[in-house]
């Protein structure tokens, strides 16, 4: 079935409009906090949530079947000043003009926000607390540097939660959660200190539930009101149905597919209002939605196409709200991408194939809507049905960059490595871009971004930034005096350790602050064990509290650079280390011939152990070093090679590198080869990437490759692609994602963005509208090597 007229209309609006800043949520939140001074912080947060649910404007937009918006605009971007307001104050005037991820905002709004909202938060935000507690040394290397960044954990809401629809939300509804919280309170004794704290927790659960129930009722009333005024009888009946559905959910457990979809959206919306979160994951959608679909279908009240339209309406809701982030954060997470990761496929906990009609529906909805959300992930197990593989690879061939494709078993191993029980590890879903995750978990999945290439720069430049000359890291000896590759690697390790240490300090500081003022009653309500334990997520209430994740960037650039030094200086004696240092100090100017030699050295991504073994050693060191630290809760820190778009900002702050890269050029994301340097075949690139020990990097690993579109244009070509995926997963690889749009199309889109507004491309771990990316980001995507042989 083709996309319906209704969905197409909503889609067009989504494509054509820029998100608009709304302060409704921030204003309601602020007023509530003014009223609750002195109360326990968790109560204040929950109360602010409830008050906001009562106050937000309620809008049902043209043609909508699934309703609920976080402000007065269809594409709303909200503000969360309690986390950070200073950056908003500094940047809000330029929101509409900025290159990456602009937002509409009016002068009246800006004035109102400055006058009424910011003043209250002065001195109270997480950001200010963080900066006040952080030393100059840490700031110098780890605040807005591009060498080490942790600001997503102290400037914005956290997110990184997968709602537990299966054991908590769908079977209970918020009415059920409220009842449960009240029952727990009954059994507590306020005179016992631990119980007293738990009572605050349960009180906050009641407030959250009340907020959600209110939200549903208000939409129900609004729909009823609109139905009365509606002239078109068809739309009138739709509005009455909306009124009926919203009168029931989210207070009560849904009983039909239609109600379940609306329920799921309300849960998502509540999370947006609570935190404006990143990586707020719908999780294994096909697993919890299928029972509703099956029952409705058997009862004859729904067919595939009707269900699909509802799913597509939900996809547009996921895409209409925009994550509000700073310019710096936007350079790391480009494309309005809020990482609502939705997982389909894989195996059930009992090991049997988990695919069902809803899995295919999700893939079809993504193909037809071409929205940048949800971030669709597919789990592929060794006995994956060929039909599912064909659906997955067929979506790849559209060039939209979706889905992210994951090896079922590697995900399981990654969680097992963190001590998960088998039944939970087998039930993993994706979080954000490529993090294996669970609905039983509290984890900062994208906590620090740490640059391998920065450590190399410091090692080869006396601990100074090559661009600014500033001494940002610990001193090192004159690079021209290194006598062996081993000595250089030791210097790299020393610098890298310093980066890790300051990352740990920053994150523990942020954890302390969140424990004081960062309680998350809304997200805790979505977590089975928080309710059981009477503890918030930040107090360790979840079944699994996992240490914060360090994401390594620049692995291939660094390995390639060390391979160049090994080959040209120590193995072949074609030049001296001095020559290389001079060349990179001069950004290769006047050293073009040496640069050609450097470029011709073995490069990661070609199945050549000469360099791949260096990459693996660096990755292993990263793991050993990071996991040697424990966080505030006593959990080991975790490693990942994720993507986000951080290969751009982290490259921008670096001088030239020995493998031939020029100053300020991008580095690389995840375990991907450096742009354009995987010149052999796609198979070799996969084999190189698989040499990293994926299962120990439990925060996820990411591999982006480009394929020429012709090669996946036929069913047969796609079957071969499926075989490549299975091979990669057999080798232990975790994730791979493809861009398959030809550069001709991208060039055309760059020249005529108006014609290509809906073109989606893979950025890194996620897809975004191509025309929403800055020019440099577009260029870097085009430069990624297209594997034409396949």
């Amino acid at each position, binding site marked *: 079935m083709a996309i319906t007229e209704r969905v197409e209309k909503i889609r067009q609006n989504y494509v054509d409009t820029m998100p608009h800043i709304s302060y409704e949520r921030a204003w309601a939140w602020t007023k509530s906090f003014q009223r609750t001074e002195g109360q326990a912080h968790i109560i204040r947060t929950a109360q602010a949530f409830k008050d906001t649910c009562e106050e937000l404007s309620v809008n049902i937009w043209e043609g909508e079947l699934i309703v609920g918006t976080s402000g007065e605009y269809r594409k709303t971007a909200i503000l969360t000043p309690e986390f950070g307001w200073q950056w908003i104050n500094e940047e809000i005037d330029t929101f509409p003009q900025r290159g990456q991820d602009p937002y509409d905002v009016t002068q009246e709004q800006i004035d109102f926000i400055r006058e009424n909202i910011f003043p209250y938060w002065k001195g109270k935000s997480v950001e200010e607390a963080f900066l006040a507690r952080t030393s100059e040394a840490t700031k110098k290397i780890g605040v807005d540097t591009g060498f080490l960044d942790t600001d997503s954990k102290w400037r914005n809401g956290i997110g990184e939660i997968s709602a537990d629809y299966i054991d908590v939300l769908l079977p209970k509804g918020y009415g059920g959660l409220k009842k449960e919280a009240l029952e727990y309170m009954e059994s507590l004794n306020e005179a016992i200190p631990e119980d007293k704290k738990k009572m605050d927790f349960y009180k906050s659960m009641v407030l959250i539930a009340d907020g959600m129930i209110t939200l549903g009722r208000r939409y129900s009333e609004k729909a009823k009101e609109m139905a009365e005024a509606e002239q078109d009888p068809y739309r009138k009946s739709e509005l009455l149905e909306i009124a009926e559905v919203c009168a029931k959910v989210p207070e009560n457990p849904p009983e039909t597919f239609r109600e379940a979809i609306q329920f799921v959206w309300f849960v998502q919306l509540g999370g947006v209002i609570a935190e404006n979160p990143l990586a707020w994951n719908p999780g294994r959608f096909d697993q919890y939605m299928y029972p509703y679909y099956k029952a409705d279908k058997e009862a004859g009240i729904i067919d595939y196409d009707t269900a699909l339209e509802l799913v597509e309406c939900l996809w547009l809701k996921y895409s209409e709200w925009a994550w509000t982030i700073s310019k710096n954060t936007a350079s790391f997470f480009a494309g309005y991408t809020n990482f609502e990761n939705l997982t389909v496929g894989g195996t059930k906990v009992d090991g049997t194939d988990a695919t069902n009609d809803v899995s295919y529906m999700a893939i079809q909805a993504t193909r037809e809507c071409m929205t940048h959300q949800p971030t669709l992930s597919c789990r592929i197990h060794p006995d994956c049905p060929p039909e599912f593989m064909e659906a997955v690879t067929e979506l790849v061939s559209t060039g939209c960059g979706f889905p992210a494709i994951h090896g079922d078993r590697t995900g399981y191993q990654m969680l097992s490595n963190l001590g998960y029980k088998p039944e939970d590890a087998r039930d993993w879903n994706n979080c954000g871009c490529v993090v294996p995750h669970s609905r039983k978990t509290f984890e900062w999945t994208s906590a620090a971004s740490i640059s391998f290439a920065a450590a190399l720069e410091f090692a080869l430049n006396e601990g100074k930034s090559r661009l600014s000359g500033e001494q940002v890291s610990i001193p090192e000896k004159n690079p021209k005096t290194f006598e062996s590759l081993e000595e250089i690697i030791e210097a790299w390790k020393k610098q890298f350790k310093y980066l890790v240490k300051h990352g740990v300090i920053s994150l523990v500081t942020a954890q302390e602050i969140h424990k004081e003022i960062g309680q998350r009653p809304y997200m805790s309500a979505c977590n089975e064990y928080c309710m059981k334990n009477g503890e918030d997520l930040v107090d360790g209430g979840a079944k699994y509290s996992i240490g914060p994740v360090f994401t390594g960037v620049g692995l291939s650039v660094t390995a390639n650079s060390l391979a160049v030094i090994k080959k040209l200086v120590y193995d072949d004696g074609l030049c001296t280390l001095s020559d290389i240092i001079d060349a990179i100090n001069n950004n290769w100017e006047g050293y073009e*011939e040496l640069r050609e030699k450097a470029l*011709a050295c073995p490069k990661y991504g070609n199945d050549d152990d000469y360099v791949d073994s260096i990459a693996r050693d660096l990755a292993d060191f990263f793991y050993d070093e990071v996991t040697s630290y424990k966080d505030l809760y006593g959990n080991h820190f975790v490693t990942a090679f994720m993507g986000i778009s951080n290969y751009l900002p982290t490259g921008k702050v670096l001088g030239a590198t020995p493998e031939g890269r020029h100053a300020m050029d991008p580095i690389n994301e995840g375990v991907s080869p450096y742009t354009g340097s995987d010149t*052999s075949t796609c198979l070799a690139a996969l084999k190189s990437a698989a040499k990293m020990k994926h299962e120990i990097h439990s925060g996820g690993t990411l591999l982006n490759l480009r394929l020429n579109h012709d090669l996946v244009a036929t069913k047969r070509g796609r*079957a071969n692609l499926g075989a*490549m995926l299975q091979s990669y997963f*057999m080798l232990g690889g975790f994730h791979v994602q493809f861009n398959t749009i030809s550069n001709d199309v991208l060039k055309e889109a760059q020249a005529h963005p108006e014609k290509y507004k809906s073109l989606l491309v893979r950025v890194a771990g996620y897809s975004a509208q191509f025309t929403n990316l800055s020019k440099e980001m577009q260029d870097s995507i085009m430069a990624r090597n297209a594997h034409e042989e*396949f």
Partner: protein
Amino acid sequence: MDVQPFSVNDGDGIRTTIFLAGCPLRCKWCSNPEGFFKSELVGWHKRKCIGCGECAQVCPKGIGINMNQGRYFGNGQDINDYTDAKIVSNHSSLSDGCDACGKCVDVCPVGARTFMVREMDADEVIEKVQRHRLFYMQSGGGVTFSGGEATSQSEFLDCLSERIYDLGYDMALETSGYFEFDKLRSVLERMDLIFMDLKIFDDKKHKEYTGVSNALIKENIAKVAGIVPRKKLVVRIPVIGGVNDDAENIEQTASFVSEHAPGAQMELLPYHEFGRIKYEAIGIEYEHPEFIRPGKEKIDKLKSLLLKYDIEIADYK
């Protein structure tokens, strides 16, 4: 010879293609001209060259950057005269020219000097083939022998195919059909799929464009059909617009196949010009504006002719 991983159009799944050098035919449209030569051959890719001159400095024969300047093969400039004999050169006062010692290949920083034909021993080939075993297993792929002409090194082919047979990988053979059947029998029996070309049905025209008669080829097609199971033989026509894309040629071939190789499939491969870059690299002029790449419509029309003869069409795209 050369080994190319990740081939997907010469048999099922993901394959590694082994190109064996040397060919008794001289097809005027050949896209792998390096395959004419059995001895080692170095090429120069002008487009990649940065002109640094490292190659010229290390060359023991004093050959300059443009190694193709004045290079000639055998004794003449006509394609039919290119022989497997030692390649000679007159670009220096030295009479023996480039002997493919490979020193320039080693020093070229950008890969502009490469071996177009190189000697490899069986162990080296097997190692390269093994590297991608996982991909064969997952995709149902394997190894394809091609050329040049795979059968022109029949003993080596026998040795390689025996070793790969023991590894259990799927094997395919692409051949011009111009070989001594009895010498190849055991190789043919090991194959899972055999592609045989019948480039032009008319023998006179065949001679004109390929340098050899097709009588032996026709004989071999019939013999091969007799020893391999149905559908394991694919008779191929490289369709060259302006040469053999007429209905008569296609129908004659189809009729022959249905009579002498019943059960064989046929495949029509449209001519392409990708070989041009290789001619450039080894310094042979290639100007054939008379050869036209047939369009999809044309190919579809010709395919429909095959159906009249009840012949199944193979398609590995």
